[in-house]
């Protein structure tokens, strides 16, 4: 049984995949909680991650789908980074292989977490180990040439759209990752390219004879998804966009469905309609990694109209629509834990009581 976890961290993304064979992949890490705010319902992501890792101090793959704060907050405080001693030692978690889009290496004018992670990605890329770069724009070759490196000697570290990531395979790991995006033409060196050039992947899990497919779509806008669908259909790779679990893009922003928000429900553009309504499998689950769905119109996601569309898709599939900050309740959100077994996906729903008491430390007692 494989386990997939999404964490209640507000409008932000973190997805931990734990495989039956013990290997792990982490998609984004955004520890958004304000520890000084007692009313902040977002989880302590670092602690949650460490609880999952137990005694392990290394993750096989950590993917940063793009370098926005809601995808990498506090990464430089938690992970062991190879490029500078000040990010090493202590109980920092090591990253065996880092996955980044090419934009994460190329973009300029970045600050904070993004700058540190860019430095780490550039260091690993120049060292030629511990990294996989997605997308192959010409500027990436130029980056290597500028650093006195032969681009041909870094080809093995670059994955194009439409290929499988070599770090995992179905035979040994029970999972494979197919990269849909970024394409070379969507990669750039400007911060504003980030969403469009972010990682968009399909993970295919296998347990016994049952495959379970999950779409991880970061903050990709509908225009890029439209391209992904068009190209996938052109290559007759429709099964690569089938899904049992869909981490819907950009915290349920309507812009990942259409340019038009809609009055009560966003109507997706045709190719996205196909992606959700045709490619979704019976009992499929749509996950919105976002704040609770508002009842009023808002500028920032999540947008209730987009949520209404996804909710309808879930209902039609006989599946579930789950919002990370509403699961299991808005007042006490907890990580969404999805077990993947021989009968597809299953959301773990363990009620409280004695088991909850004894699985956690008791409060301090005494005079």
């Amino acid at each position: 049984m494989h386990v997939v976890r999404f964490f209640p961290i507000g409008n932000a993304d973190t997805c931990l995949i734990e495989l039956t064979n013990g290997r792990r992949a982490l998609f984004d890490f955004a520890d958004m909680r304000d520890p000084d705010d007692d009313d902040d319902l977002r989880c302590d992501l670092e602690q949650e991650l460490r609880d999952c890792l137990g005694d392990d101090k290394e993750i096989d793959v950590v993917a940063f789908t793009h370098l926005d704060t809601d995808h990498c907050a506090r990464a430089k405080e938690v992970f062991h980074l190879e490029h500078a001693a000040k990010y090493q030692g202590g109980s920092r978690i090591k990253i065996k292989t880092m996955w980044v889009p090419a934009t994460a290496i190329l973009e300029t004018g970045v600050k904070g977490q993004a700058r540190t992670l860019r430095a780490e990605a550039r260091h690993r890329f120049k060292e030629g180990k511990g990294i996989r770069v997605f997308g192959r724009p010409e500027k990436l070759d130029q980056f290597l040439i500028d650093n006195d490196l032969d681009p041909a000697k870094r080809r093995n570290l670059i994955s194009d759209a439409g290929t499988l990531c070599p770090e995992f395979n179905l035979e040994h790991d029970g999972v494979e990752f197919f990269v849909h995006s970024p394409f070379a033409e969507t990669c750039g060196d400007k911060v504003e390219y980030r969403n469009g050039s972010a990682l968009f992947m399909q993970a295919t899990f296998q347990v016994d004879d049952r495959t379970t497919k999950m779409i991880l779509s970061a903050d990709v806008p509908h225009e890029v998804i439209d391209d992904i669908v068009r190209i996938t259909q052109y290559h007759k790779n429709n099964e690569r966009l089938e899904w049992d679990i869909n981490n819907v893009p950009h915290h349920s922003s309507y812009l990942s469905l259409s340019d038009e928000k809609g009055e009560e429900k966003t109507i997706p553009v045709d190719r996205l309609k196909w992606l959700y309504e045709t490619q979704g499998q019976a009992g499929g689950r749509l996950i919105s990694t976002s704040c609770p769905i508002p009842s009023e119109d808002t500028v920032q996601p999540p947008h209730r109209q987009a949520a209404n569309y996804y909710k309808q898709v879930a209902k039609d599939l006989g599946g579930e629509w789950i919002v990370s900050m509403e699961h299991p309740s808005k007042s006490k959100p907890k990580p969404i834990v999805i077990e993947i077994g021989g009968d597809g996906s299953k959301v773990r729903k363990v009620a409280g009581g004695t088991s909850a008491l004894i699985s956690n430390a008791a409060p301090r007692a005494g005079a």
Partner: protein
Amino acid sequence: MPNEAEELRSRLARSVVRYITTSVDHPYCSLLSAHRDGVADVVDIEVEPELAQDRRVAILPQEPIRLLFFTEDDSIEPSVRSLREDFPLGQVHTSLDRSADGLGLCIWEEGWPDLSSTLTGQMLIERIRAWFTLMASGKLHGDDQPLEPLIPMTSHTLVIPPGAIRGPWHIEKSFKDAGTYTLLMSDTAPELGVVDTGFAIFHRELPHQVHRALGRRPYDLGALQTLLETFSIDLVADLRQWLAQGDQTVRAHERHLLLIFAIPMRRAEDGPDEALEVWAYTGGETLAVFGETLGATFTVVQEGGSITTPALLSARPLTDLTLIPMPGWRVVQRLDRATARVYAGRGDAPDLKLVGIGAGAIGSNVVMNTVRAGIGEWTIIDDDDVLPHNTVRQIQTNPWVGYPKALVLAAESNQVLAQSGVTGIVENLLRPGDKKDQIASAMKEADLTVDFSASPAVVGHLAESDLTRAASLFFSPDGSDLVLLAEDRKRALRIDEIEAQYFLKVATDRRLDGHLAAARLDRIRYANACQDLSRPLPPWRVQMLSGLGSGKLIELLAKDAAIANIWRLDSVSGGVIPVPLRLHGVQRFEAGQIKITVSGHVLDTVRTLRGKCSPNETGGVLLGTYDVVRGVVHALAALPAPSDSRQAPTYFIRGVKDLQPLVEQLAKSTAGRLKYIGEWHSHPQHVAARPSSDDEKVFGHLSSHLEPTGSPFAMMITGAEETWFRIGWAERGQLEGVLSHGAG
């Protein structure tokens, strides 16, 4: 808690509401409403079960449920109903109750009084959630569970014989207690004539059915007629014809109608009939009244009785059939061995033939226990009679004192189930007399022959007998340990060889200290002869270890491999510690009147020690057991050279330091069974494993010392490729052999 919920009368209803509304952690359940409705408290909820994506039954992520609570003290179990209009119908463990305002769900199988004492609001919700999870996965009704009935039964009880009964039905006995009947039915007429129980039986076998959701229970003749029409049976027409027949018109004003319907049941339409479901109904009135109501008969009351005759064709039309109550009976079936195995959790086990040697403490208890589990058509061989002291720990009781134990055990065991299968042979296995052929035949046909006698002689006899498989189950002398030794199904290891390895284990495993060390002092005399001694042994220990032995014996029947295991009972703490024994393969040699088996452990030991000491020769003594009657020696262990031995590339002189106390200790811990049987030594590389002139002197030395004693004596020489041995044994002569190092 909502105000209306505070007014709920049922404690459990309030607990449910409190849990859902105030749980610290999310209960995966929400409260829709809670209110009083007449005699019931009604709590409507929506539960969120854990659901896998692939579902055998279309359960939804949110399932609306109605809970009905009927009493303040919850002495009546609450009703759980689905409020989903499209809930999948026809599922096992759902109920189409006639009074339901929703589909009834069978959430628990325990008795309500037992369950309710620990059932909290949270537990109830969790059970309902778990029910939906299991229903969705298709695991709610396990393949190992018996088939669900088509309709439930209550009221009076009909006890029917085991197996598939096709009728006719006879009433064997009748009991009436507080207005409730219990009828014991038979498929054969009672030997002592017909029992007048006041019932006339109308019986029909209906077409086979596939088990499914519980149907609506008929409470009246109209509903029963409607139900049976779905089986293409016109019940009323058949009844009218039957009531007018001669047998039914006799004493019709005194006798009552008993309807019995038998339905062969299947798990799937194309599967075999697995069970027979039986329905029984009583018409509340006499045959006479019933016949008149249906227009079948006419009864004239006159002085001294009444006369019932068939009605004229122009009899008055039928009344409304729904006005005729038809109470359903509870029907329970007596157990045969196959059904007993299901109740004992061994439904997949086949029926087997077994032979037991010994009907004493362990034999009688194990046989009785396995019979209760539906295991075994036993043949018991024992020539003892029941004596008063036997009743303390054997199943034979005081009235049986003086009778043969084997026959008493058979008689008692055959009372357990409705199917008998235990027979006794009053005979001594080792001196069978005129029952020799009967015993030989029983053992040959049996799937397993079990020695309960704790007699090495019996073990030896079984090892050489023509039988399928042998086992030995016995207590240690003080009754604190249980031993199970069993051959593999191919008899690659014989029971005496396993017993020999057991003795070595007892001698060398500290966990078994004292296992065979019971002293004669703790025996008590039960009669006057010098051998009339028995050991005090509390019955609880006998039953505890016998119960364990029964279970392990049943497990053994399903396995192919040889088994040797010892369980030590700590009578202070009540704990039982298993000490498993790893069995080694043997190589066997036989010539003339001598048989010897050499354990793979011996061969492994001498080869290992030879390798360690090379290029010097090394050696030591051989230990084993032997049976002077059968002329069998089991070579079990080779000890390393004592520290004062002299070892060189061309010779070995075995020393003596600490050897004698060690061998004596080993012998003592096995009640003298493990003994010195000879010497072994190694030969260097490139020297054949054959006796040199010096070696012949050693063998002569052994012969001169041991031949007069009647003990066997062996010499073993291990070389690089093979190991040679010779054994001598008084007038039995000598036997030589070569052990291949490639064999086990």
